[in-house]
């Protein structure tokens, strides 16, 4: 009886805690969305009043009118997809060599790759910027994609996944006369599809969101990405018009939240993998 009563109280506390936690993490999104549906006079008059008087899409219209959203969005998607695909393309042969080929210094090569990738973009951006400037690649798509062609996580995950593929499968393919490239991309890649999907989604989301590298490597509208444009919304115009900034925020976050909602499991798989 006493135990039951205690359990009831505990359930009530845990329910209250759930509501608080949900409010702390979802409340800001709600506030962002509500603000984006207001008008400037409404915000100035009663900034903390939650509900807009009516649904106003003026802020969204203004964002689309002042910023080439479509162009930036396309740039961002293209960049993120190109990086994710390049990482997979390069991680497959590297992971294959590290998992399945015998050669002197294999362990050391693996350690060296992981070590290289402990060097973050924040350390290399100054010299890479100089380097790309020298060959005229600043402000190009290549400057955004190529430096991220190799992913530590990717190489590691592909190697781990390939370790669990029996050697006999590869031997049999070799007997049938398949080339190494055909074995890697035609035979093994489909076998480890879940790993590749997790890697693709993780990399896509990370680079879609990236602000630092595009900020440093581009000045030209033709290659700039959406996070830069949205951050710029706050710096533009006279006074800060928060409804417009929040509308930009909603436009920036929605696609990524949608991807997350649809593929939470795959993304978590890559996040919880330990290198």
């Amino acid at each position: 009886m006493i135990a039951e009563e205690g359990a009831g109280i505990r359930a009530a506390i845990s329910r209250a805690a759930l509501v608080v936690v949900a409010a702390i993490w979802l409340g800001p999104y709600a506030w962002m969305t509500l603000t984006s549906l207001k008008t400037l006079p409404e915000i100035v008059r009663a900034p903390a009043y939650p509900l807009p008087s009516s649904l106003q899409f003026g802020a969204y219209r203004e964002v689309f009118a002042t910023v080439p959203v479509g162009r930036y969005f396309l740039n961002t998607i293209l960049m993120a997809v190109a990086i994710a695909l390049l990482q997979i393309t390069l991680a497959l042969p590297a992971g294959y060599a590290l998992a399945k080929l015998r050669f002197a210094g294999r362990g050391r090569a693996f350690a060296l790759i992981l070590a290289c990738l402990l060097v973050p973009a924040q350390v290399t951006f100054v010299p890479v910027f100089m380097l790309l400037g020298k060959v005229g690649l600043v402000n190009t798509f290549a400057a955004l994609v190529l430096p991220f062609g190799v992913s530590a996580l990717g190489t590691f995950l592909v190697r781990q996944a390939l370790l669990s593929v029996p050697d006999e499968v590869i031997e049999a393919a070799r007997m049938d006369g398949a080339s190494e490239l055909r074995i890697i991309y035609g035979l093994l890649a489909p076998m480890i599809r879940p790993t590749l999907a997790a890697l693709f989604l993780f990399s896509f989301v990370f680079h879609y969101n990236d602000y630092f590298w595009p900020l440093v490597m581009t000045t030209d509208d033709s290659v700039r990405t959406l996070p830069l444009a949205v951050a710029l919304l706050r710096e533009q115009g006279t006074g800060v018009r928060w409804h417009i900034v929040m509308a930009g925020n909603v436009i920036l976050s929605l696609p990524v939240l949608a991807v997350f909602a649809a593929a939470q499991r795959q993304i978590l798989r890559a996040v919880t993998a330990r290198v």
Partner: protein
Amino acid sequence: MLAPTALVLALFVLYPLGLAVKNSFFAWDLLTPPRWVGLGNYAEILASGELWGAAARTLCYSAIVVVFSVGLGLALAVALNRRGAVYAFVRGAVFSAYVVSWVAVALLWMWILDADAGLLSSILRALHVRPLNWLGDPDVALVTLAFVSVWKITGYSMVIFLAGLQDIPPSLLEAAALDGAGPLRRFVHVTWPLLRPSTAFVATTSLILSFQAFDVVRVMTQGGPVKSTTIFVYAIYEHVFQNLRVGRASALTVVFFLLLLGLTGLQLWTFRATAAPRRAS
């Protein structure tokens, strides 16, 4: 097979690293040719106090981020490690902040923390509490940024801890319960020791990642007010793109890299020290 990977790494990691070291011995404004100054750049960042300032601010920011995001992440993981759609939804909500862009998170919190019209200040005023100038007060701004980052990355430690909790055999907890151990004692004597590898992993990775923070500073405070949020990467960025001082930026980069190397060494050491019977995949 390894050649493409090796090429990319050589071109975009090893060579730039060497270049950073070389540039740190020159004074260079990008307009006139670089001029050899030996250790001059290092002497300058030391003498001007810039290095200590950046290092202290970065450490302070990272310490808050790591302690609070790991602590909260652990608490949430334990509280939300249950079946049911509601729990899954709340877990997703917490983790979603980790998936959303830093830019979106930074702008969103700038608005909530706005000194005049922000939601938080309005609520506090309604409760007759005088709000702080969250982003405009040099004594407060860095702490504010750290807590915005805690909000963003707590979901990361939560999912790592959740993965760790999944690996604890339920029979162990049942046996402890049969021996009469309450929830608190079960946590202290069974769960917590078995989560040590997860804790080591999440604490060191968050430390290394928070050391590299930039976006949140660039968007929310641009290093101010009065340099109070100029952490390492922002200081480097400012030297190159605003002051055109590549040499000084490179000297800071080299020191920053050595610090990261030290932190990574610490990480490897903690992993060894907490090596679990089961290695995570």
